[in-house]
């Protein structure tokens, strides 16, 4: 291995950052649902895939202007997320966690198949929201990547504030802690839960629209969701800042790991996660607390 030049290192860092941001967007979707319901949506990667395909439908197949198509995609995703909660997930409230794991895994399998049946199992290209590259000295980064960094920053801070200060945000946490008590308080639990799934699907959609142009749209693209999982876990599952920190950590270290072990690309994220968990079994910003007895 030849030594890495500073320019290359910067390039890797910047791209790692934007990659980390994409992981974060998916992870935020996961964490949102978890924060509000303690359910884990293993189909979040597939939500992202669906978002990319719906965008492909509107923008490429139906030829809509990009931003109109993108907006419609997000509207669709919102409705989809809402519907999935209201019609499917809700029926399992109160069941043990892995039952819900399995439900969403099954949902993911079904979604992949549905997308394949509708759009085909190939690889399709989706236009990027913005074209061109930004050149900062030796570092080249596409405007699309810059956009994904900006979007992630905005989304993450908005959500952080929402959960911290908004009445609904606190209520969502309350209902994840004790749903029955939340009901007793008159909190519209069902509507809030569905809304949170809608929000999470929308973020999945955003991630799909951003990732689609970079990797091609295909039924398999959802598997990247597992890396987002790794990121969210590293940060401490359930914390929005944690998810972002974890995903950035993974996004940024991964390329350097790959450079060091060029024949092991693809497992760096998991090794990094494993290492972090060895040291901090609950992730960086722990979301698991000791029970008082």
């Amino acid at each position, binding site marked *: 291995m030849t030594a*890495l030049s500073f320019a290359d290192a910067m*390039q890797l860092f910047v791209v*790692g950052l934007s990659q980390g941001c994409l992981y974060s967007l998916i992870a935020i979707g996961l964490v949102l649902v978890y924060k509000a319901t303690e359910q884990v949506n293993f189909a979040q990667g597939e939500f992202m895939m669906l978002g990319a395909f719906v965008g492909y439908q509107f923008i490429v197949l139906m030829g809509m202007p990009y931003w109109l198509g993108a907006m419609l995609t997000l509207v669709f995703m919102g409705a989809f997320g809402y519907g999935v909660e209201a019609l499917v997930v809700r029926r399992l409230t109160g069941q043990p966690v892995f039952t819900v794991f399995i439900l969403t895994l099954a949902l993911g399998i079904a979604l992949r198949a549905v997308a394949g049946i509708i759009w085909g199992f*190939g*690889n*399709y290209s989706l236009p990027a929201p913005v074209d061109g590259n930004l050149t900062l000295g030796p570092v080249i980064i596409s405007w699309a990547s810059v956009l994904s960094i900006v979007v992630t920053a905005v989304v993450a801070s908005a959500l952080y504030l929402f959960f911290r200060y908004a009445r609904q945000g606190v209520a969502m946490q309350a209902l994840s802690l004790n749903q029955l008590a939340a009901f007793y308080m008159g909190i519209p639990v069902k509507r809030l839960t569905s809304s949170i799934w809608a929000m999470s699907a929308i973020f999945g959609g955003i991630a799909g629209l951003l990732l689609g142009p970079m990797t091609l749209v295909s039924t398999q693209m959802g598997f990247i969701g597992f890396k987002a999982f790794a990121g969210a876990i590293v940060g401490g599952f359930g914390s929005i800042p944690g998810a972002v920190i974890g995903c950035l950590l993974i996004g940024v270290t991964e*390329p350097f*790991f790959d450079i060091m072990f060029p024949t092991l690309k*693809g497992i760096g994220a998991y090794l990094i996660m494993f290492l972090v968990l060895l040291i901090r079994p609950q992730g960086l910003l722990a979301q698991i607390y000791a029970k008082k007895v």
Partner: protein
Amino acid sequence: EGLQGVTDDMITLGTYTDLSGPLAVWGVPEANGLRMRVDEINAAGGIHGRQLEIIIEDTQYQVPRAIQVANKLMRRDQIFAMVGALGTPMNLAIMPQQIEAGIPNMFPMSAEVEMYEPLDPMKYAFFRSYTDQFRAGVAYFKENGDFSTPCIAQLANEAGESMALGVTQQLAEYDMKVAAKTEHSATESDMLSSVTTLKNAGCDIVFLAGGVRDTILVVATSKKLGFEPTFVTGMVSYMDAVATAADGAMDGLYLVSPFVFANAGDSEGEAKRILESYSEIYGEKMAPQAQLGYVFIDLIAVALEAAGRDLTTEGFLAATEAITSYVDPIGGQSVSFGPEDHQGIESLIMAKVEDGKWTIAARGLDY
């Protein structure tokens, strides 16, 4: 007590392929091609008064599922022969018992050398091996233009490994070594680190021993960084989606393949008819994988035709072995078998992306 899969008016064939997994890009068009030729033959009255039937099962590119569906095809559906079964690991797992059960393995959708070696009366392969393909690719560039710093970007699976093996073997002929090698998994979404490794190694030719998506990503990422070595990929990427990907970034990508991807626009006669009628039936362009499926059945039909009405497995296999001057009606490659040679296409081609389309840069590659 008749022959398995053959009745007075029906011959049952089977295949397992990937209809919804990572290689569904191959499996779905293949299945269509297989079906199209079967329907054509049946519409034309079948073969010696027998209709053809093909049962297609989905493996999702998972070995355990493949084993199960193959078991079903062989034992429940009682197929006469397996045609175009997709996937190296699946074929490797299933072939032994399939052959033991007396079911020929015809033209698997895998270019692994084990598909025809060691020689076995029951197995016939269409493609030359991945290893040979890449050896020929290396030889081609050694002869036309030369290179000094060869590198490999390999997909972490068995096909990738075989392709990479071809590269190292052929390089050894020239006393050369691979300058850098990266290996990635199939679900990667970013190849920057691999590309940086290759770039830092100063590669002037990169052999992409891999699949579809990773090929696109490596080439596109390199373009963006202004790293432009010669890229050579394998037959797995031979499809439109690769040529048109990333707004022209694929232009200049080379590909070694045993088969030719024909376009309706450039074809004439029978080939044109097939390509157009496929588009009519399936509402999309006939992908090369569909062309392969079509040709597989066509070959089977030739053999069945030659084997006569009194069909036996031996007769069928002997008739296949006797095929020597078959010309692929779509791509035009010639296919021949012989007692010592159960592998169909000898000659390899070098394809190249130009203006977002696959063109043929050279024919008759070898090493």
